[in-house]
């Protein structure tokens, strides 16, 4: 039983790691996509921007796919319920996500102004929209989502999707995610770009980082007034994974800060995030984009783990039937499954990090626009 609890906690942490990887790597590419029309005034500059992430976006995107797969396996009920309750939003996200690979591959293959201009808009939409939705999903989950379960484990939705798109706190989280993505993408454009391109990217990145910092601070104050969720009595973390028949849960303003009060060390998480968001733009001001990129990564990690730390053990609380809220304890896979998955993760995550690093090393250095324009093998 203790082993099962440990596995559940490890997978909750790994979920945070995965979401961070997703936010940093995919967010960077999304940021470049969003910025494409603004940092690139000429076609050459835009193609250079795409060439900068060209060899890597495909690999980065797998974080997104792996995120989906890992939630499916490690928290099946969470996967089933969250993707379905957020249906319209998720489908919009999917549309944006599938537009992007196609835009990369097709944009520069035809030399016509309207063709390329259309794909540049596609980059803007498919970059900005997923980041806003990614952030907004966090915002919605923090406020609780309206759903309950039938006897066989089927979920039923109790709210309209319009709420998930248009509520102020979710929008704030969405814009913050976009700002961080713009920051991360801008930093990458500075690392490998030259001249005007890099200069414009720098301005946008600094703005994005500082905006994220401001929104993070506002969100931190706002969370005090949002109704968080808390158990009324202690739960058995080793319980079998079913959302039915669980202990009562109350909704109370400020409950999301409970974990921080009981474990003050957790305050380090938002502090790390804020350090990243403040230090990043400063590094870019000092023209140290590589340092800035890593500080941006720190900002993401800090933010995501802050949200996770506030909610733990809740994953997706239900605002209409709080007792059926999904938690780390009641939405996870079986011990056998989590064990096997952990084995695979322990073996393969280091391998993935190693060859991703190798790929970045092989392709390192500034991208020369002249060569990009001359060679139609480039994006």
């Amino acid at each position, binding site marked *: 039983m203790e082993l099962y609890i440990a596995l559940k906690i490890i997978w909750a942490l790994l979920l945070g790691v995965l979401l961070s990887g997703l936010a940093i790597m995919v967010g960077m590419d999304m940021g470049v996509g969003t910025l494409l029309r603004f940092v690139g005034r000429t076609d050459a500059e835009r193609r250079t921007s795409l060439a900068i992430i060209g060899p890597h976006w*495909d690999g980065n995107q797998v974080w997104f796919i792996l995120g989906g797969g890992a939630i499916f396996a490690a928290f099946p009920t969470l996967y089933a319920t969250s993707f379905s309750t957020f249906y319209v939003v998720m489908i919009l996200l999917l549309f944006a996500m599938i537009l992007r690979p196609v835009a990369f591959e097709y944009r520069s293959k035809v030399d016509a102004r309207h063709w390329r201009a259309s794909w540049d808009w596609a980059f803007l939409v498919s970059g900005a929209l997923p980041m806003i939705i990614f952030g907004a999903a966090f915002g919605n989950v923090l406020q609780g989502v309206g759903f309950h379960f039938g006897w066989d484990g089927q979920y039923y939705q109790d709210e309209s999707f319009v709420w998930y798109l248009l509520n102020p706190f979710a929008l704030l989280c969405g814009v913050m995610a976009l700002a961080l993505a713009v920051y991360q993408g801008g930093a990458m454009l500075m690392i490998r770009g030259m001249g005007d391109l890099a200069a414009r990217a720098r301005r946008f990145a600094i703005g994005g980082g500082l905006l994220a910092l401001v929104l993070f601070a506002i969100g931190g104050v706002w969370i005090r007034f949002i109704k968080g969720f808390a158990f009324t009595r202690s739960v058995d973390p080793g319980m079998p994974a079913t959302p039915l028949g669980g202990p009562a849960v109350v909704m109370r303003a400020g409950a999301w800060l409970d974990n921080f009060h009981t474990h003050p060390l957790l305050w380090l998480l938002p502090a790390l995030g804020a350090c990243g968001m403040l230090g990043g733009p400063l590094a870019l001001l000092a023209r140290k984009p590589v340092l800035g990129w890593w500080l941006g990564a720190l900002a993401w990690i800090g933010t995501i783990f802050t949200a996770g730390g506030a909610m733990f053990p809740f994953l997706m609380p239900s605002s209409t039937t709080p007792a059926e809220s999904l938690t780390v304890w009641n939405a996870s896979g079986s011990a056998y499954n989590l064990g096997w998955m952990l084995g695979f993760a322990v073996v393969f995550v280091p391998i993935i990090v190693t060859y991703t690093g190798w790929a970045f090393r092989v392709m390192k250095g500034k991208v020369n626009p002249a060569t990009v324009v001359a060679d139609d093998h480039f994006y």
Partner: protein
Amino acid sequence: MIDPTVVNLSRLQFALTALYHFQFVPLTLGLSFILAAMETVYVITGKPIYKDMTLFWGKLFGINFAIGVATGLTMEFEFGTNWSMYSHFVGDVFGTPLAIEGLMAFFMESTFVGLMFFGWDRLSRPAHLAVTYLVALASNLSALWILIANGFMQDPAGARFDPVTMRMQFKSFGALVFSPDAQAKFVHTSIAGYVSGAMFVMGISAYYLLRKQHREFAARSFRIAALFGLVSTLAVVTLGDALGRMDDLVQPAKLAAMEGLWHSARGPSAPWKLFALPDDEKQRDAASIGIPYVLTPLVAHEWKTTIPGIYALERAAKARTVSGIKAIIALKSFGASHDPAALAAFRKHENDMGYGFLAQRYAPDQDLSAITPALLPAVLAKTARASIPNVFVEFWSFRIMVGLGVAFIVVFAFGAYYSLKNELEKHPLVMKAAMLAIPLPILACEFGWVTAENGRQPWTVYGWLPTFQSASSHGIGYMIFSLAGFVLLYSLFIAAELYLMFKYARLGPGEHTAQPKPLPVPVRPVFGQPGYAHKPWQ
């Protein structure tokens, strides 16, 4: 209450997106190894024409790969967005291969594909070759884990239903991974991809040869593709036969539908239907032509076994439904009360619970406890009928797939023979056939998908969870929104994809790979230039 319209729309959407995705997958599986073979020749012989070949076919590979990845994203998320009950029910075991696919294969494929396209100047020849092989291996490993997941839907091995968590729980990793169904399915699908890739390369090369363009390039590509394809088609047909025997053992209803067997086939003389017009409504053939003494040896590889027909399978389904209804009623009561007596009652009928779920649709208000003895026969009859997949679709999609497979052997055999004799130019007919056959392997793959997945109906998890029970509880509006979006986007994509494929295939290799265009500025290495003070590109 489950709304049948929503379930049907969800099925339509999944089928559309899966079939669409599956147009691109076979080419990726096959082309990647053909690229690896070409580059191997380049590294061995050092002849630059093989590098040109790798680059050119690599470009077409890239166009196809991008859209394959894009549409694959949909698949990974669609289980959650549209099949929540399914995801909850089997996520503990079905999600695992999907996650491992990401960890082990997809990451590798996508990271190295970037290096494969852009790393030519930055890697040594052997290192680049290794990268190409890794891409090929990883794309097939991807298929492996996806088909292990699919194998679980066809023959749920390695898991057991747990009444406390109301889902299938993972029990044996080995049983899941080495399930015979998953194994045979993977090998069959992967090699079918090789056939598709080979036909693609061979057909386009034939087009050049017919027009007497790029002959050096096309003759070599043709040779490699013809041999690659010939061996692959032989393998794919043999493996398909093995897969059929597997279905005979674990999915008798699928096999009966594939062969249009209304009555059980006893003894060696039972006819194999070459042609038939199965009528699902009346459950008989409107017309049929059979060849005696073929069916039993073909399916079972022996003379004396009995192959159960649809009538017999429906009778068996009725008995299981009676038991399944008891199982579900006991399960529901156990869920509410955690009463050990209810659990004991459930355990007695556990293995038939899927049929209880299946019967739910035909019970009054979809409530099994409301079935009166008077209503029972009607419910049983409807459930039994529902337990058989659509015979017409299954019969014909299977036959089209097999027919195409046999035709490919002929095309590849002639292509390989004349290519080996260097007499291709004397036989334009062979080349025309190769050209016309380009899309056919993809078509065969699609029909293979239909055979496998239509034959699995009415189940998402064979014998345990019906499709009807699996979908998310969406409103119709949601489904129309997403369906309309997918149709619109995917139509745009296919138009752009075909336009580009034709454009680059017509342009041919010489135009853009052999000689780089003269540059307005001095050529410099692409990367690795620190400070670049002036801007010659403006």
